[in-house]
């Protein structure tokens, strides 16, 4: 059918980019957490 759309590829691409984004957010969070704890303990 002309209007039978398949968005499987799109959802897979979105999942990949979301995992990459979460990884960088985690790294950034770790740096910020270390910075905060160092600041508190000064």
């Amino acid at each position: 059918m002309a209007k039978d759309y398949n968005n499987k590829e799109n959802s897979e691409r979105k999942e990949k980019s979301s995992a990459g984004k979460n990884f960088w957010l985690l790294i950034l969070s770790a740096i910020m957490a270390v910075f905060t704890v160092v600041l508190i303990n000064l």
Partner: protein
Amino acid sequence: MNLVERLTEFWAKFTTDIGVTVAVSISVLAFIILYFCVMRFLCNNNSGKVIPVIILAMIIFGGVVLFNEQINNFLFLIVPAIIVLLLVSLYSTELKRAIWSLNNNKLTDSVRSESATDTESFISDCVDEIIKALLDMSKTDTGAIIVLANDNISSQILQSGVKINGDISSELIKSIFFHKTPLHDGAMIINGTKVLAAGCFLPLSQQNDNLPKDLGTRHRAGIGITETIDVISIIVSEESGIISVAKGGKITRYADVNLLRKTLKNYYWQEFASQKR
């Protein structure tokens, strides 16, 4: 004794009780979780641009704390409090939505575990009728907007349309959205197994920059209602017949039968969960 002194005393006791290394590790872990949740929340709400500002503010804050020991107490209390207050007031709607989604997920799981075959067949009938109507309207390029509410639609929205309170059937849905009828231009509100109203006016979406230009007023209204209330809206484009599903201010275009079935089944499980409460 003020709050800062109490916190310092607590920290000193905490480190002597469990050891400095363990205490520091726990606090680092707690801050990682806190920062990750906040940044993910900001990214999910199209506010990723705020993150560099927060990092810059932290660096400035750190510098000030290092070089001005006298105002440490003031800064440690006031600055985080102001940031929290600002974030809460700026993202109040998004916070509400995040809390709703947490609550709904738990309810859905708890009810699903005690599922009954009667309920499943009943839900299946409603889902089939809605999907049949949506696919038929998509084939004929009939514009439609259906809002799936959980007893949370405001009376103002319901009063802007015409009250129906009828059972769900594909014929009823198609008749309402037939382009020569007076009710076809507004939204249909479905609450559980009833079509509550049709021809309702919805608030338009506020995210002008993030939405593609080809989305018309119907799509913007469909997204707009999900930004402020925890509902799902299904939109059929009048131009292309494309079916879209909007939830939490986000739209998924090119919805196929599987996505529609999944969305509707999740909605009906939530609906039964709220009835059981």
